[in-house]
């Protein structure tokens, strides 16, 4: 190869790089390891973590759910995972058709006209939704966030908006755990481009969209919902039926392991009328020369590689493989499996909540919830620690985000918790002798 190139050594190929850079480029890194040594090294790191699928009672944006073997089997098809963005549609129909099916499934769950090919995660999807609303309502400078929206989603929206000249107003939650309707109404005026609420919100509570959306629209703003636990949409009336303008979410619950918080997949749905303001990739149906159905990336003139600084977003790579995981899991569950799984989560969480209440805990919020709820007890933190010592992840203490909820835990119960673990949880949090 060197002869063909006409150089004497590989070093010669680097002669365009200044010598002073090359002289200092040595890597002070260990030598390579054989496959078995890499594996044992990583196994030893993994062994220092406490995995807790069966003993995990935390959600708060990442949900322990069972992933059927079929999902990972499909994800391990290298034809899917080793491909890239389907720039050559004729040899990418697998990715393209699967993405088109994913877009359809997300639109069905949200009851929105359309959905895109995915975003990074729920929080960045929420931030992109806010940016989109600000483009659609370009004369308005203000965004209203519910304080019951996931704190990290609020943080990310704040980071994305910093320096843009836009203003964020937070509205409190009320005694029921829902966004305070009166406070929201007071915050809405013709300076507001959008209002964002969680659905369910961070407390697991189902917001009253029938009451929240009309005043948002009345002031001319866009209503945005963010769903961190997408399984809830297997049983809750979808945002689109409440006339929500942009519905975003985190899809990790369907098909993805917790993986210490990533990768998941951002979901993004909206009205067809807004499609040209939408961020992210889109797959559309078309035909080939013989009239055969096929799928292509479309409406790319919104995107950075065409429009550069005038693009709707800078997003390029999204979370394609995770969108596939979502679609495979949802295909397995299907219309009734999804509903039943959601109903299971609903029932189990309510059973644990009721038991804790009988055991002396207070449920401070009275509004309906899905598979996650807030429970308070003067001894909450000590009991949380006791549970940890027994290998139970008994929710997450809320004080780090809500000082006023200092002795409260946010608990989540899904299908993965074993009956035995539920029993231990209850015994630890609400011991009979206490």
């Amino acid at each position: 190869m060197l002869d063909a190139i006409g150089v004497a050594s590989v070093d010669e190929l680097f002669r365009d790089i200044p010598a002073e850079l090359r002289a200092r480029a040595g890597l002070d890194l260990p030598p390579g390891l054989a496959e078995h040594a890499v594996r044992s090294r990583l196994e030893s790191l993994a062994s220092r973590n406490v995995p807790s699928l069966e003993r995990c009672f935390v959600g708060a944006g990442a949900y322990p759910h069972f992933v059927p073997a079929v999902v990972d089997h499909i994800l391990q098809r290298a034809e899917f995972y080793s491909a890239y963005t389907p720039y050559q549609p004729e040899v990418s129909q697998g990715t393209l058709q699967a993405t088109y099916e994913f877009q359809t499934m997300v639109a069905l769950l949200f009851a929105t006209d359309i959905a895109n090919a995915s975003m990074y995660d729920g929080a960045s999807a929420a931030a992109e939704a806010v940016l989109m609303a600000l483009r659609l309502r370009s004369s308005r400078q203000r965004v209203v966030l519910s304080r019951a929206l996931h704190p990290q989603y609020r943080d990310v929206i704040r980071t994305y908006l910093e320096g843009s000249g836009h203003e964020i107003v937070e509205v409190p939650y009320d005694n029921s755990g829902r966004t305070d309707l009166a406070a929201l109404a007071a915050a809405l005026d013709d300076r507001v481009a959008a209002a964002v609420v969680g659905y369910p919100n961070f407390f697991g509570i189902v917001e009253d969209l029938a009451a929240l959306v009309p005043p948002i629209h009345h002031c001319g703003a866009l209503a945005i919902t963010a769903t961190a636990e997408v399984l809830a949409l297997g049983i809750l009336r979808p945002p689109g039926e409440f006339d929500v303008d942009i519905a975003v979410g985190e899809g990790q619950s369907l098909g993805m392991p917790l993986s210490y918080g990533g990768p998941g997949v951002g979901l993004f749905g909206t009205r067809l009328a807004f499609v040209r303001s939408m961020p992210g990739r889109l797959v559309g149906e078309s035909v080939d020369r013989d009239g055969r159905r096929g799928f292509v990336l479309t409406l790319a003139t919104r995107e950075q590689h065409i429009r550069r600084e005038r693009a709707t977003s800078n997003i390029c790579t999204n979370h394609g493989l995770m969108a596939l995981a979502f679609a495979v899991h949802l295909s397995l569950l299907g219309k009734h499996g999804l509903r039943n799984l959601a109903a299971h989560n609903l029932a189990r969480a309510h059973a644990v909540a009721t038991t804790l209440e009988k055991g002396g805990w207070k449920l401070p919020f009275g509004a309906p919830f899905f598979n996650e709820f807030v429970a308070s007890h003067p001894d909450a933190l000590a009991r949380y620690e006791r549970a940890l010592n027994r290998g139970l992840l008994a929710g997450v203490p809320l004080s780090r985000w809500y000082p006023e909820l200092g002795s409260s835990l946010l608990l989540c119960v899904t299908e993965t918790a074993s009956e035995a673990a539920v029993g231990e949880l209850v015994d630890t949090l609400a011991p009979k002798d206490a």
Partner: protein
Amino acid sequence: MERQKQEGLLLDEPLIFERSCPGRSGADVPAPAERPEDFLPPELVRPPVDGLPEVSEPEVVRHYLRLSQWNYGAATTFYPLGSCTMKYNPVANELVARLPGFAHVHPFTPDALAQGALELAAELERWLCEITGMVAVTLQPAAGAHGELTGMKMIRAFHRDRGNPRQKVLIPASAHGTNPASAALCGYSTVTLEGNQIGLIEPDAVRKAMNGEVAALMITNPNTLGLFEREILQISEIVHAQGGLVYLDGANLNALLGVAKPGHMGADVMQINLHKTFSTPHGGGGPGAGPVAVGAALEPYLPVPRLVRTDEGLRWSEDFPRTIGRMRTFYGNFGMHVRALAYMLALGGDGLAQASRLAVLAANYVRVRLSGTYHLAFPGTCMHECVFSDKGFDAYGVKTLDIAKRLLDLGFYAPTIYFPLVVPGALMIEPTETESKDTLDAFIEAMLQIAREAREAPERLKQAPVHTPVGRLDEARAARRPILRWQPRSEAPGKSA
């Protein structure tokens, strides 16, 4: 022409929704005894979602396996997609990312019970610092463009702290579209720098554009033409002298491992695409991972949470008053971090350096073998990729798109086409270090054959591809009349007209 795909076992595959049969399910989830209305007011409960598939498990497996067979990946085919570094994704790394101690750890596990995950993150940060010559790293960004946005947010915060966020960012015309888009998202207008006749940015061009209004230069090195920006040291000095910062787009880091460190080039911040240089799978369009490395000037602005080492071990801390904040939930695409570290451990320092040397060798071999037949956009030695164009092929009525489509028929994925924009009809080829000389020779032969066909049988190129599951698709129609989803209960469109 009769399509081979219609024959034998290469079967057409309907949409999963079109496979539905009422009552079927691929999951064993019985309804619980309680009704949803026992817990929720009826007006909040939806009926089962109409339109979701009703298919059995074997049907789901068959559906997706068939779709997979309609895909080409780096594992199935040489994938010379320039600027994307489609190197082989080691299978072993898929296994380690799925260890229960990684896959089933909740992000709100107390730090003390997730020390393995935190140690892994800390070690990956150390390796990335050593490779890039920078002082600190955040693993949070989810992709390259997300890393760019993170970096530009930090640059803005840096200038804001000094009294003026400034208004402009300098960006070479050859840059990825994500560069201007990321800068614009941070409120900056962009000033385009044209390259010189050999494809490089001249210090004088930077000097002329540089002033106190310019927040940063975003520069890709090696650039998207596959050329090393030789004057990078002087260029960085010019930017710094006016109080500006240098954003180095690390998309092409695969040329530089053990060869040159961005931290020594005057870079203040850069993103590292783990899915390019460090072999994590591209996934058909993500998930990627775009850690951002910084020099001392920007270190205080890194996103939170950040790792800090204490007597009790590592913990996540948000206690950094000048941080730009959070860019996404949790700690980044941890599953990708596991794979990237596994790759680094397997190669070691020497192996990483060897990877870059072989990647550059392979690109130059392709460059030399195809020069003369294809028009090389800029002469001279290239780094990890080389850029040709369709110049001269217009005599036969053949365009870059035709060349790319014909390659598909000959068993290869196409190079990146029509990018960078500064080369009309660009064909950007990045072979990577994981291809053998045999594969490169076969690809080169295919390219030479296509050039012959362009002269002798141009129709064959225009008809291409014919050996693929579908023929050339009507992209204009898809954009003009967007059909972006399947609709339940409507007349399903026919499979063929």
